[in-house]
């Protein structure tokens, strides 16, 4: 299934459009999407998967910590926005 993703601030790799479409298996969770993004964009992998830093992951306007966190299931055409927490004061 296709999921729309926006990477904000320093998470957005140079030359990558504002919104990207990522193909992931049906019934995937947020964790699988993060893994796929890290594979597609290795230059930001360390910022996406970091045990000491929790980026804000907004699924349809809701922070995933308010749902099931990384175990939240994604629907076809879901919109996910990832905002870096630890960049700049």
């Amino acid at each position, binding site marked *: 299934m296709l999921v729309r993703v926006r990477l*904000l*601030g*320093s998470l*957005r790799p140079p030359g990558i459009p504002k919104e990207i479409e990522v193909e992931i298996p049906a019934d995937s969770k947020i964790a699988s999407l993060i893994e796929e993004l890290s594979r597609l964009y290795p230059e930001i992998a360390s910022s996406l998967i970091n*045990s*000491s*830093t*929790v980026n*804000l992951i*907004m699924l349809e*306007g*809701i*922070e995933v*910590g*308010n*749902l*099931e966190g990384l175990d*939240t*299931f994604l629907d076809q055409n879901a919109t996910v*926005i990832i*905002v*870096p*927490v*630890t*960049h*700049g*004061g």
Partner: protein
Amino acid sequence: MKPLICTKCHERPSIYHRAYSGERLCSTCFKASLRERVQGAINRFNMLDHWSRVAVGVSGGKDSLTLLHILKRIENETHGSEIIAITIDEGIKGYRDESLGIVERSCKKIGVEWLSISFDDLFGYTMDEIASSERRLGACSFCGVLRRRALNEAAKSVNADRLATGHTLDDMAQSALLNLLRGDTGKMASLHPGGFRNPGFVRRIKPLCEVPEKETTLYSFLEDFELQSISCPYAGEAMRGDARAFLGNMETRRPGTLFTTYQTALKLMPEAKTAEIMKTCRICGEPSSGDTCRVCQLLEETKL
């Protein structure tokens, strides 16, 4: 999956779960609670007087933009203080150029006066020049000391009686832990969010001291602030990075760790701190604890 209803208004769907308090908040209640948290800290630490002239250090990052935005709103509604944004241009090509534009546009949008002062104007060198010089200390050590001086100079130049900085709960907890790890308990007092009156220094206040960085990020997102896309090329303070990683892990596994660390630091602070007896730097004439201030010591060391 449908989110639970906001635990504050009991009407709108929640968008954020505060793991450390158990609250689930809608966008409106989250933003209101953040402003209340800042107002609470301002009151509790007597940060402002009526009609204070507050210089707000704004780097263009999410924390300082959140601070500026919330202070402007709180001050409009309550104290009637004056707000002026100040930005220090360290002279870091690319990184600072982008953030100067963000600050200028943000100030214009909310109607705040803005002043930018550069390292080059104040010290005769840009950070890029200092970083490329022969030196013993890391770039961040230079930048931190020079930026503190520059902020004080900028605040004095606009006749401010307060200098507000965007230090968050995460910064406070990290500094507290670092002071303990370094055995520097004397420095714990400098963490006081309400600052001190010291001759030659504009009183520094930290209104975001009880706001986690994750929540300044969410506030910035909800308010649609411009976010910096370029990271500082000199970033990488090893020891603070370690403290950040440790506390970040602890907060995820044991929500509330940041608050506990910060509150412990407050308990360790002396009840009251009197103004330090300051000398005058033999080179620049600014207040100094020794014969030569730290700024002049560092600039001598760069051998530029």
